[in-house]
Structure formats: structure tokens, C-alpha cells
């Protein structure tokens, strides 16, 4: 290097840049975890498709943006769409009037099939019937089974929230629990209320609902922690989604409470917590299956006139999973399909 010709500031700058580069090169990498570890694990392969004509299928849900559960439903649908030569369209809104409008948009667009959730059945009634009147087959998923047939849908694929809650209540009985707290992270959400009501129905001990601020994890954490501190008799915490479950585990550790944590729905960290026994059990309603089967159902109906379940409600849950199932689950939750 021709150091003599360099201005002092340039030298300082070059030295600084060099040091930074070296520092990043030396200390910047992680030997454990991360993308490299994931890529070394290897992954699944693709698959072939069918040669039926291209179809357009739209799904309209009541999901909030960025919700893990609905993300898994979509992965299922996309997988089925890829296999069935289907163009998969998706839209969602938490607001019932907007959800109904979205359905109407797809009716106007004349898609070949519509998948819709009936979390707020009355609001969706006219939109669903408009689709049926326009000759578009409709499949309902998730909640709202009792309204599906009445509104003219082909079939319903899902799980009743209250039935899932009841399954949790029974499992808690089996584990000899006495006092449970049901954590509601979004007040006024019908599905969440139904889950807690289901737990209350079958559980022989007492169930109290706890409202927490679902917008912030520290808020959820301190809310559950406060409840555990306020009431030492609580021996089980039931959370209603996978993200809240992690906070409940944290709250339990922080307060030294002996309470067991159980949750609805899965994700990767739930699978890990099950394996580490920080979570006692989880209720899976197989969202992937709901998305997958709904698309497949519309394709089957179009190409072969089949109706899965012969018009009866097709149940995808509730399945209770525990630490025994964790190793397998981990593999699937990691890629966001369970």
C-alpha cells in the first residue's frame, strides 16, 4: 500500500472500515442456529399436478392481519391449489360488513368457487346466498357449522370452537385440575368466548376468564402474571392461541406458580414447549386441513361432483396433542403447516 500518498483522514477511514470488516467477519457469524442450520436440515420436495382446466377459487376469512392460525390455513389452501391447478385468491377482514363485501366482490368477479368462514353468520348470510344464487359453489370452514347448510353451502369443514373448549375441560378433569383461568386476548371475539365457554361447560372445577391486552406481549405477560400473583389457587392457565401460550409459560416461570399451561392451536414454540413439558397439552384443530380440504372439495365438486363428508360437517378437530407428539409436530410447525 502506498501509505505516503494517502491523506490522513482517508487512512483513518480505511483503517476503520478494515477493522469493521474484520470484526464482522470474525465475530459477526453465529455457529449455531439461523438460516444455515435450517438449510442443512434439508427439506421436503414438490410434486406433480393435475391436467384439469384452470379454476379460480377465492377464500374470505374473518382473520385479523398477520394471524398465525390463518396463515396455516392459507398454506394448506395453496398446497391444494398448486396440486389441483387452481388460482387461489385470498382476502380477509375482521369486520363483518367488510367480510361480506369481499365475498360479494368475488361473486361479481365470477370465480369458480368460494370458501368462507361464518364466524359472524348473520352478517355473511346474504353474501353467501348471493354466491349460491349466482351458481358459485360455496364451502364454509372453521366455525359456523350449524349455519352452513341453511345458507346453501356444499359442506362445512372445521371444528366447533365450543366443542374444542369442551375437550379442554375434559382433559383438565382427567389431569385433576381444580381452578382454571381462560385468557382472552381479544375482547369481543365470538370464537374466543365460545372456547372459554366450552371449557367452563365440561370442566368440573372453576373457570375464570382473564382479559389481557393482546396487542403487546409484555402486556399479555404482565396481565397473566398479575392474575397468578393475585390468586395462588389457580392451577391451570388456558390460552387461546399459540402466541399467548409463550407469554403464559413465561408468566408462570416468573411467578414460580405451579399452574399448568394448556393452549389452543399450535406453532413452533408451542411444539418446543410441549417437548420441554412447560406446556401440558395443546388442542389442535388442524387449520392446514381446513384450508387444504376446502380447495380440494371445490375442485372435486367441479371435476367429479363429489362432496367430502356427503354433506355432513367434516370435523378437523379437536385433537389433543402432548409431549409424545411433539417431535413430529416440531418438524411440521417449523415450516408453518401445523
Amino acid at each position, binding site marked *: 500500500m502506498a501509505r505516503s500518498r494517502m491523506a490522513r483522514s482517508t487512512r483513518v477511514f480505511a483503517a476503520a472500515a478494515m477493522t469493521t470488516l474484520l470484526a*464482522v467477519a470474525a*465475530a*459477526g*457469524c*453465529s*455457529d*449455531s*442456529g*439461523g*438460516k*444455515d*442450520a*435450517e438449510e442443512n436440515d434439508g427439506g421436503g420436495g414438490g410434486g406433480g399436478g393435475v391436467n384439469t382446466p384452470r379454476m379460480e377459487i377465492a377464500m374470505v376469512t374473518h382473520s*385479523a*392481519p*398477520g*394471524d*398465525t392460525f390463518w*396463515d396455516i390455513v392459507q398454506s394448506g389452501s395453496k398446497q391444494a391449489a398448486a396440486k389441483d391447478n387452481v388460482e387461489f385468491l385470498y382476502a380477509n377482514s375482521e369486520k363483518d360488513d367488510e367480510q361480506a363485501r369481499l365475498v360479494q366482490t368475488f361473486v361479481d368477479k365470477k370465480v369458480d368457487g368460494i370458501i368462507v368462514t361464518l364466524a359472524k353468520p348473520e352478517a355473511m348470510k346474504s353474501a353467501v346466498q348471493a354466491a349460491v344464487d349466482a351458481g358459485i359453489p360455496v364451502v364454509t370452514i372453521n366455525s359456523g357449522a350449524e349455519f352452513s347448510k341453511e345458507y346453501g353451502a356444499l359442506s362445512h369443514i372445521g371444528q366447533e370452537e365450543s366443542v374444542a373448549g369442551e375437550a379442554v375441560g375434559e382433559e383438565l378433569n382427567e389431569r385433576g385440575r381444580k381452578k382454571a383461568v381462560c385468557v*382472552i386476548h381479544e*375482547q369481543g371475539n365470538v370464537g374466543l368466548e365460545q372456547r372459554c365457554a366450552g371449557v367452563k361447560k365440561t370442566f368440573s372445577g372453576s373457570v*375464570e*376468564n*382473564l*382479559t389481557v*391486552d393482546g*396487542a*403487546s*406481549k*409484555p*402486556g399479555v*405477560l*404482565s*396481565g397473566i*402474571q*398479575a*392474575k397468578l*400473583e*393475585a*390468586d395462588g389457587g389457580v392451577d391451570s392457565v388456558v390460552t387461546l392461541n399459540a*402466541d399467548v401460550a*409463550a*407469554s403464559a409459560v*413465561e408468566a408462570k416461570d*416468573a411467578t414460580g406458580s405451579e399452574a399448568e399451561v394448556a393452549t389452543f392451536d399450535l*406453532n*413452533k*414454540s408451542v411444539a*418446543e414447549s410441549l417437548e420441554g413439558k412447560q406446556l401440558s397439552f395443546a388442542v389442535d384443530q388442524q387449520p392446514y386441513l381446513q384450508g387444504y380440504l376446502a380447495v380440494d372439495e371445490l375442485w372435486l365438486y367441479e371435476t367429479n361432483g363429489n362432496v367430502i363428508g356427503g354433506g355432513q360437517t367434516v370435523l378437523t378437530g379437536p385433537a389433543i396433542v402432548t409431549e409424545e407428539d411433539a417431535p413430529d409436530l416440531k418438524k411440521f410447525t*417449523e*415450516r*408453518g403447516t401445523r
Partner: protein
Amino acid sequence: MTATLPADAKAPDERLLHASPLHRLLGRPELGSVIGAVAVFLFFAVIADSFLSSLDTVLYAASTIGIMAVPVALLMIGGEFDLSAGVLVTSAALTSTMFAYEMTANVWVGVFVSLLVTLAIGFFNGFMLIRTGLPSFIITLGTYLMLWGANIGLTKRIQGTVSTNGIDDMQGFESARVLFASSVDVGSFKLRVTILWWIGLVVLATWILLRTRWGNWIFAVGGNKDAARAVGVPVHRTKIGLYLGVAVAAWISGQHLLFSFSGVVQSAEGRGLELHYIAAAVIGGCLLTGGYGSAIGAAIGALIFGMAKQGIVYAQWDSDWFWFFLGAMLLLATILNSWVRTRAEAAR
């Protein structure tokens, strides 16, 4: 502030009156909120059994709001809003965890990159504000929605799911956790590190406001922008600086979010929190119109918020009414605050 005439008409010119320490204390913006805080504290100490024994949890809840409330208060004193503050916290957390994961980098590298990204977003807010001259409400509403969408969209695009992969098995995680999400047991009190960050930020912000030229500038641009510019206050630099302050606090909060939960961050989180921060600042005596307020006041506002939020649970009130109770407590505390403040000013 309108000067009230002394009751005694023969009193000397009020500008020459010697202000006693008590009167000066009564004139501080945070005074009213202290009374409100004491009232909320006593209320829950009496009616909720485990409130006093769980003050560490209460302080933790207050600190997670308080860390953000401090720079948000400064910004409001400077006459501006930041509606993007809530989701910016989530953006900061997502950036660190995804950068570290995707690059298989040391976690500290992700933390550092996140600081740069967060500062860039803060700069964008400030820059757009001074360039367009539009109200900060609309500018930051825009960034709020854009960030919210980008948080979900980019997370989904990069990692395939809407919450990020855990990074707790990566190098640097443990040491960074100590800085952002650890806790020390002091007797039976669990001192979480966020409480220290909170106190540190309050001290720093108070020093800036009361002891530095920057502090004078902040009050000046919030009071009257044009007058401030006329006397030579660098209005643009001050406002951008304030947005960078919010960004730094959002970065700290984001790192806390990330390191307290093994690196798994839910991308849709943080909506609505910006209003909690603004509320804490206003409860603590900041004016929505700018030019008046204090960092200590914002901290006390966050404390009232935290105490009310946790106290409702400790008191074991019907959980269905949680938000109602919270709103009512905050309203009552703020009414008490402003009543005390008006009385105090009248007494001067």
C-alpha cells in the same frame, strides 16, 4: 398560561414576587400527575390484596409503556405526534431477529442493524414532516399503516410464516438478553432491566429538557414554530432529532420484545400501543398542542397506566369490564391531575 392577579390588590408587581419553593413545585407540569399516581396507588393498595406484594410486576408493566412514553412526550412538547411508534417497536424486533436468522449472523449484528433501520424510519418521519409541511398526524398515520403492512408482508416473504423463527440457539443471544430482557432479584423484588432503561431514559430526557440548549429548542418549536425560527432555533434539526429519539426508544422496546420471548416475534403486534404512549404523556401533563410537559410527568403517566392496568387484575374485578375500568381509571386520574394543576396555578 394566564397570570392570575393576586387577591391582595396592594401587593407589589407579581413579576417581582419571590417564588417560594412550594410555589415553584406547584408550577411543575408533573405535579398534578403525582397526586393522581398517589391516589391510584392508595386505591389499589387498599382494595387489592396482592397489589403491594407484586409491585415489581406493576413496575414492569409501567416500564414497557414508560420507555416509549418518554420520547413520545418530548416529541409532543415539540408539537408533533408519532402514530407509528407502536408498530415501530415490532419493526425493530422483527429486523433484529430476521437479520440475525437469515444471515446466520451473531445476534448482536442483528441488534445493531435494527438500530440503523429504526433510526432510518424515524428520520423518514421527521424528514417527510419538514419537507411536506403536512401535519405529523397524517404523516405518521401513513408510516403506521405502511409499517404494519410491511411487518406482516416482509416477515411472510422472508420467513414464510407470520411470526419469526426463534433465534435463542444463536450466538450472542444470551449476552444481548442480559442487556434487554434480564432481571435481578433484589430481596423478593424482581427488578427487570426494562425498569432501569426506563429510569435512565427519564433522567436523560429531563436533563436534555432542563439543562441543555436542545431542551430550550424543544419547548420553543412546540410553543411557536415561527417565533422559534425567527430567534434562530434550528426547527428542522430539532424535529428530526425528536423523531430519532422515538426511534431509539422503539429500538430498545423492540429488543426487549424479542429477547424476552426467545426471538419469536409476532409480526402483527403493536397496533394501538401508540395511543397508550400518547395517553401516558398526556396523563403526565403534556399538552396535545405542544410547548408544555415533562419527561418525569410522562413517566408518572406510564406509572398510573401500569398501576391501573395491573391493579384491575389484582383486584379481581370482572374481566369482561377490563377496558371499561381501565378507561375510567385513567379518566379519573387525569381529571384529578388537571384539577390539582389548575388549583396550583391559581394559588401562585
